[in-house]
């Protein structure tokens, strides 16, 4: 591989994509959508009313007040907490025992009553944020006995449920749902539309022939396109995450998942670009290609109980499914469960890279 050549191709394509109005729209669209939806839903989705009772002073009160999108109401009687949750004026209730802070410091594992009505999604999100706040206070993983109570438990839900295979959007709030969706759109559009367009345009306009009579080889060109696809995917996804406060939960696993999905989708884009020789064919087929690629990701977010494994198993093999799974788990602070998605994406990227190399060898022959 000639690095100088690949970098020159990447630099040229990076600028050329911005000069192409059509590609520029495709690059900016997911970022724009994320900003629009983030603005429209930010106020309405996350304002969680919390009724709070403590018999004495606690630093936790200030920590909860500092949480994003939490509206705190302090009450003077623990029964009032339950009443507020019951009548719907609070989504979550928190009751602390006397000397909570002191017990926490003495590692006495103080009780913490967490009351919610019938929205476990909000409660689990709040509980994770609460644990982070307590860890912030004590400086170590919290030793707290959380006693959760559901006032009107929903049918069929309960403890002991195994990790869901689908329905990952249930673990994140609507804002997180949109972040995952726009990141998926960004990596798919950048990897599987921008990259093939850049490659097919070179073939269609015969500029590839001009490159290949210089010391540049086809592999160098492909590596340049891979680089530019990765850069655009990572920039778009990073911006979407940053602008929408997406670096929460387990940001490291989220970043890893984004890097791997960007690689996988760009490699798919290179395979598509290698198969198609002219722009009109690419334009005709791009819609048919993009939709099946994104569909598993969308389906990963919704519960699919009772659906045949013949349908769900192939869906789980798709990179976008693993993106949604991994990113949703990362955003919801359950990054430990997302490693399997990262491994699957890594293996898929390796297989896709091998497929690209194989197609290059075939072309050379």
């Amino acid at each position, binding site marked *: 591989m000639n690095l*100088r*050549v690949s970098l*020159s191709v990447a630099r*040229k394509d990076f*600028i*050329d994509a911005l*000069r*192409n109005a059509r590609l520029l729209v495709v690059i900016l669209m997911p970022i724009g959508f994320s900003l629009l939806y983030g603005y429209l839903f930010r106020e309405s989705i996350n304002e969680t009313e919390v009724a709070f009772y403590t018999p004495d002073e606690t630093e936790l009160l200030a920590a909860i007040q500092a949480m994003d999108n939490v509206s705190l109401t302090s009450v003077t009687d623990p029964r009032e907490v339950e009443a507020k949750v019951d009548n719907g004026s609070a989504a979550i209730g928190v009751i602390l025992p006397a000397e909570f802070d002191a017990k926490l410091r003495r590692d006495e594992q103080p009780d913490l009553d967490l009351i919610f009505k019938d929205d476990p999604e909000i409660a689990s999100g709040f509980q994770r944020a609460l644990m982070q706040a307590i860890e912030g206070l004590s400086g170590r993983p919290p030793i707290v006995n959380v006693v959760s109570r559901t006032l009107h438990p929903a049918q069929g839900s309960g403890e002991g449920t195994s990790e869901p295979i689908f329905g990952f959007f249930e673990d994140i709030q609507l804002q997180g749902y949109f972040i995952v969706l726009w990141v998926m759109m960004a990596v798919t559009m950048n990897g599987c539309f921008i990259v093939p367009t850049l490659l097919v345009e070179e073939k269609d*306009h*015969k*500029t590839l*022939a*001009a*490159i*290949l*009579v*210089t*010391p*540049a*080889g086809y592999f160098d060109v492909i590596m340049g396109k891979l680089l530019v696809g990765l850069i655009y995917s990572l920039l778009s996804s990073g911006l979407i995450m940053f602008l929408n406060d997406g670096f929460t939960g387990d940001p490291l696993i989220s970043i890893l998942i984004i890097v791997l999905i960007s690689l996988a989708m760009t490699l798919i884009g290179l395979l598509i670009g290698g198969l198609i020789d002219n722009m009109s064919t690419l334009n005709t087929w791009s819609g048919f290609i993009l939709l099946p690629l994104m569909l598993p990701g969308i389906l990963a977010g919704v519960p699919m109980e009772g659906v045949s494994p013949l349908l769900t198993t192939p869906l789980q093999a798709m990179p976008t499914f693993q993106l949604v799974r991994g990113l949703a788990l990362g955003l919801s602070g359950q990054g430990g469960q997302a490693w399997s998605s990262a491994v699957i994406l890594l293996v898929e990227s390796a297989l896709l890279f091998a497929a690209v190399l194989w197609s290059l060898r075939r072309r050379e022959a």
Partner: protein
Amino acid sequence: MIQTESLVRKYNGVVAVDQLTFRVEAGEVFGFLGPNGAGKTTTIMMLTGQLRPTSGKASIAEYDIVKQRAKIKPLIGVVFEYQNLYERMSARDNLTFFAQLHGVGKNRVEALLEQVGLQDRAKEKIKVFSNGMKQRLLIARALLNEPKVLFLDEPTRGLDPAAARAIRETIESLGETGTTVFLTTHYMEEADQLCRRVAFLSEGKIIAMDTPRNLKLKYGERKARVILDDGSEHLLSFDEAADAARMEQWMRDGKVLTVHSMEASLEDVFIQLTGRMLL
């Protein structure tokens, strides 16, 4: 500099180039002439490594075009038959990109922009350029690496006479600098003007190869068309004693208005050889 031996290229069993054997010397401007579909572009594509020959051998600067392709690339420049430039980029950016691929500096880019007369338009996007300007830029691009062999595939096709003349002058100057030029064209006057030797290609085969002068002499007629002051036209042969006497008498009597030699053009030679026009 360029040598081929029984070079063959087939597309799905159809022979496009058939047993081509020729040699182009270093510093020579060599014309490869033939109608559309004769196999000119296929030959260039094989020699420049874009296409593998079905059989036969060829070398450039003694490097095999298949096995030593990487060694040939820095030695050649190619002007394609189509104007394959990046339309959304400026003239300077186009050249700079290819300069980076060749590993040559920006000074060379500026020098070439000046050489082809595009320095004042260097910042403009290619999509606003005329065909002639694009063609000049393509030649500049092909010269970035100071190639030992320059392949020009129909460099003046579709250009207006002034633009074509400018391109021909550039090719002439390249020939003077010792660059080997492999020129394909179906404009016979162009080949006549520029090339030291030409090869006629028809249906993938070389049917004649020599200097333009020798070909014209070999296949042309030794005749002259004479128009007299009474308006009559006469065709005289240089080899007939009676015609020489007639001409002498008309000259003595002051009857001759004009004399046109009937030397064959390259196009006449081609038609004579193949029985078809160069279209």
